[in-house]
């Protein structure tokens, strides 16, 4: 038996091409005739359809009847992976969940139609917010898609799981779409930005283990830069730059009335932060999938925590907080140098070389 699956990808726009071959299936802009065949009882307006140029993920498989359910459920998983790949690379698009739109599953000559909450609206009436992909962007997303294919442990690494949840949550239409009437400003990057910074704060370091007299804003910048900045000499500067995101988040949630949070400058910051967040997710994916050896070393929290300063009641909390191997590792990367921090160069370089090496492999 042949199973053909077509999943509409809402908001996705293909530039420079009508079709793109993925490692598994392809992205296509189906012809009007094909959709009419798949959906014969629905009166599809040809003009609207041609204008909309909806993009579908298409796959085909030959299998036995007994494998039918398996392949149909595999298709759903694949669509999830593709959505994640397109959300991470380049990382700035707010892509609605594909299953909220329409899908067609053709088994031999019969077609099953699955309509999500959008029904056919996005397929026919175009995208409220277009997420444009050129060939270069598609190639990169395809590399991520490929990387996700046998990534069964993705949910086992808590920081990564949480980060993906926030990426999806902030792109979810109910969160991202501010409501009718906002036109070009209809998307909510601002409060998505706050959610992203809050998540990063919770996975990168523990405020309760305040170190080197650094405030929370500076700690945020420093710890995040340890992950993102591959040049050790640039870490302090990058840390200063990244801490501005935390500062902006603080002003947003604590209520600075006189700051224009919707200004062009701030909108660009929200976008850039989302881009860097997506980049962080890619790093976390590498750390999780490639089993970075440093994560296996058992660092004692007592080695570097000002343990005697910690109230007895809070020790249990710290124990839990330090269970996160990412925090433990980043903490270990910073050593005490007479009350100031010094980056453990060996560990830093080992880490970034590891990331770079795997990175090159993914995108080769």
């Amino acid at each position: 038996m042949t199973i053909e699956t077509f999943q509409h990808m809402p908001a996705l726009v293909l530039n420079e091409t009508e079709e793109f071959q993925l490692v598994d299936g392809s992205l296509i802009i189906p012809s009007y005739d094909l959709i009419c065949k798949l959906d014969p009882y629905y009166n599809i307006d040809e003009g609207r359809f041609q204008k909309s140029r909806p993009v579908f993920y298409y796959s085909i498989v030959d299998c036995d009847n007994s494998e039918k359910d398996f392949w149909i459920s595999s298709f759903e998983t694949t669509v999830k992976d593709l959505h994640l790949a397109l959300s991470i690379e380049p990382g700035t698009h707010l892509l609605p969940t594909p299953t909220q739109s329409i899908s067609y599953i053709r088994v031999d000559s019969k077609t099953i139609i699955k309509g999500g909450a959008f029904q056919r609206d996005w397929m026919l009436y175009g995208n409220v917010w277009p997420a444009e992909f050129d060939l270069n962007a598609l190639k990169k997303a395809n590399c991520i898609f490929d990387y996700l294919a046998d990534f069964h442990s993705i949910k086992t690494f808590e920081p990564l799981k949480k980060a993906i949840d926030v990426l999806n949550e902030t792109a979810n239409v109910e969160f991202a779409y501010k409501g009718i009437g906002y036109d070009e400003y209809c998307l909510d990057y601002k409060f998505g930005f706050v959610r992203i910074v809050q998540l990063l704060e919770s996975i990168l370091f523990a405020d309760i283990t305040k170190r080197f007299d650094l405030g929370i804003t500076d700690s945020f910048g420093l710890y995040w830069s340890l992950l993102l900045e591959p040049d050790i000499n640039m870490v302090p500067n990058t840390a200063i730059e990244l801490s501005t995101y935390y500062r902006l988040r603080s002003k947003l949630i604590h209520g600075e009335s006189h700051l224009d949070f919707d200004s062009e400058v701030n909108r660009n910051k929200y976008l850039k932060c989302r881009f860097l967040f997506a980049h962080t997710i890619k790093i976390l994916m590498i750390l999780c999938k490639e089993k970075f050896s440093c994560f296996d070393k058992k660092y004692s929290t007592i080695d570097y925590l000002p343990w005697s300063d910690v109230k007895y009641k809070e020790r249990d909390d710290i124990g839990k907080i330090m269970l996160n191997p990412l925090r433990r590792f980043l903490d270990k990367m910073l050593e005490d140098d007479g009350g100031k921090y010094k980056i453990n160069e060996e560990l830093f370089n080992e880490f970034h070389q590891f990331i770079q090496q795997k990175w090159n492999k993914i995108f080769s």
Partner: protein
Amino acid sequence: MEQDIFMNVCIPLLGVKSEEDISGFLTKDLEVIKPSLEGWEFLNQPEVFSEQQRQGIPMMVNEENIPYCIQFTLEDIEDKSNVQRKKELIKITEQVVLSLQLYKEGWFFNPQQYQLFFVLNENGVFKGRYTGPFRQINFDQFNGLFPKQYYLNKNDLTINNAMIMNTPFANTYKIVSDYNSITPNSSVDYAIKNFRMSYNLFGGYSHRVNFLFTMIDCILGDLKARKIHKTQVNVRFLQRANIILSDYPNCDDEINWLVSDAGKDNYKSSTEWKLIGARVYRNLIAHGNAEDADFLIHVNEHFERIQNIARHLLKKYILFYFFTETKPDQYNKLNFSNDKLLSEKFYLFIEGVKEQKIAHIELLNNINRFIC
């Protein structure tokens, strides 16, 4: 003689129910109606019906399933452009939706994600709609996801809008429209955003509750906060919540429950379910056990319990900001330094009430009186 140009706007409230057929006014200008079948078909576009008929869905073609709508009129719009008219329409819609959400418990689908209808009497009669991403939603497909639905009753409405003075809804509507009349504050906006997200349809209970906890943190600071922004915290969360929510029904019990982690070790035992403190949900969500939280919040019917506390708190935060912005005499007596941000001021306000400062107590009384 020149004809007055006006625009009749209709906001459909998918999910709102009533024990009996109702119609009347929520405020002087906001009328609750249930369109007739012909009226509903007139407002909608034919493709919605053909799609539903094709799928064999009886939903909107069945009179019983036509949603309650709120209708209002935009007047004096002759000199306004279509963009200005739309902006005004959206602003009022937002006010109406948030006011309904703040007025009482119960869930309905955000009409701004669905669609809004209008009829304009310019150059004949022109009907139109502003559509959202879920305008073709087959609502019945998702009824397993709904929390407790929103009920409008006769008591909420008045037949004669000329008689409306200070009904509970009109009061809530005033809180929201007053806030919209001044410079918005990002902290209040963020709190509102999180509260509104607790009405999302597809996130499940854990997501909804997570938004509520985020909102509570935004307003009151975290349970273990030592600082709110740059202000040292001396009053613990429990006290802060007790002071600001002192007029909330069963305040002590409810706040204790909100911060309680009772049942954290044995929440899987069905005999202990009912005893779970709200903090357990938060921790389950934070530590990746959202599915457990979804289940427990649902079986314990605890979603509304948390949302009700959040609702009361949000009203106070909005009013606090409004008073501090518009009542300089009262505000100056609070002696806040100018560099403090809103959530710091709110904390200091609570601290002042704890310290029995007269100006702070007076302001709290004013806020409470307004909510009553």
